[in-house]
């Protein structure tokens, strides 16, 4: 009888308990970045190396003339890489550990879970962003308006990559497929497009292909704000519109196609 009363009371408490949304959000960040960084510090080196390696390559090949563009490109690649990592991490936690299944059957909503996971990718990129931030103090010169625009561009790239990452993650069923998607996204959107150097370095017929990637518009806007290239006001407007539209469309696709509860 005592046990029954206790159960009933617990159930009542359960009904009126206020769930801490911040805790739910924080859990994703802890699991997907902070605990990994704390328990396996070697991953910190890895997160720095990826964007910096391309930067160094471009700087050496251009004899230092493209250092500003390369630092900006490093920021864009870090932001886009966060989405690629999100795809791999969501898929890994869902398919290999079944952790997402445990979260689905809990009071956490998909939006809280995915937002936390997205921010965790930013946290994971912090070492690289700090190194790039220090380099940008010396090599990138932005006005106050330029800095705001640059941050806005980075946020849009981040949002775009998150939408791509989340959508792909819901369709990947195992780790091999997940890595295949990761590499594909990374190559198509951050390695091939002119992110670390101006688009004018690409021969004309191929430039049209480069414009199929949203990261091309992001890099173009960043280079324009840094004073590395000249763009007409119409081209600036077109770049913003394309970048914002692609982000919005990808979010709509992610919202409609991605699955929290499986069918």
């Amino acid at each position: 009888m005592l046990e029954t009363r206790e159960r009933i009371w617990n159930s009542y408490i359960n009904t009126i308990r206020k769930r801490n949304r911040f805790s739910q959000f924080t859990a994703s960040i802890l699991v997907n970045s902070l605990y990994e960084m704390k328990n396996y510090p070697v991953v910190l080196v890895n997160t720095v190396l990826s964007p910096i390696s391309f930067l160094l390559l471009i700087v050496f090949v251009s004899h230092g003339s493209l250092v500003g563009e390369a630092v900006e490109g490093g920021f864009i690649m870090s932001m886009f890489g966060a989405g690629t990592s999100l795809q791999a991490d969501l898929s890994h936690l869902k398919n290999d550990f079944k952790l997402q299944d445990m979260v689905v059957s809990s009071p956490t909503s998909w939006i809280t879970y995915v937002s936390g996971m997205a921010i965790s990718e930013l946290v994971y990129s912090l070492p690289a962003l700090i190194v790039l931030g220090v380099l940008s103090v010396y090599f990138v010169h932005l006005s106050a308006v330029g800095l705001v625009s640059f941050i806005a561009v980075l946020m849009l790239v981040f949002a775009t990559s998150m939408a791509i990452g989340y959508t792909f993650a819901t369709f990947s069923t195992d780790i091999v497929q997940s890595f295949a998607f990761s590499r594909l996204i990374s190559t198509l959107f951050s390695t091939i497009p002119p992110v670390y150097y101006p688009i004018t370095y690409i021969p004309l017929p191929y430039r049209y292909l480069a414009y199929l990637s949203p990261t091309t518009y992001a890099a173009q806007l960043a280079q324009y704000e840094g004073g590395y290239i000249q763009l007409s006001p119409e081209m600036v407007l077109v770049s913003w519109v394309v970048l914002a539209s692609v982000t919005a469309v990808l979010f709509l696709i992610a919202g409609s196609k991605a699955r929290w509860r499986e069918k």
Partner: protein
Amino acid sequence: MGSAMIMAGRLMGALDASMLTCDRLSKTYSAGTREALSSVSYSVPASGTFVLIGRNGSGKTTLIRILATELEPTSGRASFDGLDVMRDAVRLREKIAIVPQEARTVPWMTPMQTVSSYLLWRGFGYSEARHRAADALDSLGMKVYMDRLNRTLSGGMKRKVLVAAVLSSDAEIIFLDEPTTGLDPVSRREFWELMREIEKERFTFLTTHYLEEAEALGDRIGMLESGRLVRMGTLEDLRHSVRYSYSVVIPAGQKQPVLRVGDGEVMRGSYGSRILTGEEEAFRISRDLIKDGIRFSINPVSLDDIFFYLVNREGIEYAGNQGADLEQLHQHYKEEE
């Protein structure tokens, strides 16, 4: 405070009638043509432990995933305490927790980090999550391991970490999908002890293909075969569904005798022969077998016997099957053992 007590009182009335109900629940995966679940209907009081048994591919995981709001059914309804798994999923998720069949601990985290993170996802504050996690791990004998990396733990300990996560939560229903698969016999029995503690406070819904586990833990047992609920009830109810009281098993690997069984049922397969019959007949057969020097075992009818008997009979009723499945079943369980 007064209104809180009134609400608690109402809740008391509601909980008295807490039932887990499935109504013609069916599931067909889009990629396949076979129904994973076929019109499953039942209603059980949400207390103690309900064990769902069935062989691999019988639909256990599909059913538990639908009930845990992870998977949409193709048709039919399921509800707990009046909350529908589809319509009221958000409210239901406040009350449920699951350890999926193939769940694994994240290797780069410690048990403390694993359990407390799960509690954060359930909406507890950081310090309460840490306290609850420490208590749960301590109660499972994991105190000394709580700050070691999961990858350094044994399989049984990793399982305990996941069970600690749901145990430390405030969930009223805990779903455990084949929680002891892969555990050694000692760890399995330790887990049973743990389950007996959990069921005092929560309703536990457990799937297994270990029949002795169902016998040891289940207040109520459901038998699932090919997506159909073959039988459900207490162990006593299931015993009564077989009118025989004794089971004589003659293992393979020796000459199988020609049996003359007065009142009983003989089932044969690659495992040997299994005879279900009454006490007097069982002892008469035993005497004959001793006389002929044939090895055998005689036991009161167990859940194994009931399961094979019912599944075989239902198989015949459903598909005109003449017992081929039974042989597969025996082979399957022999391999499991």
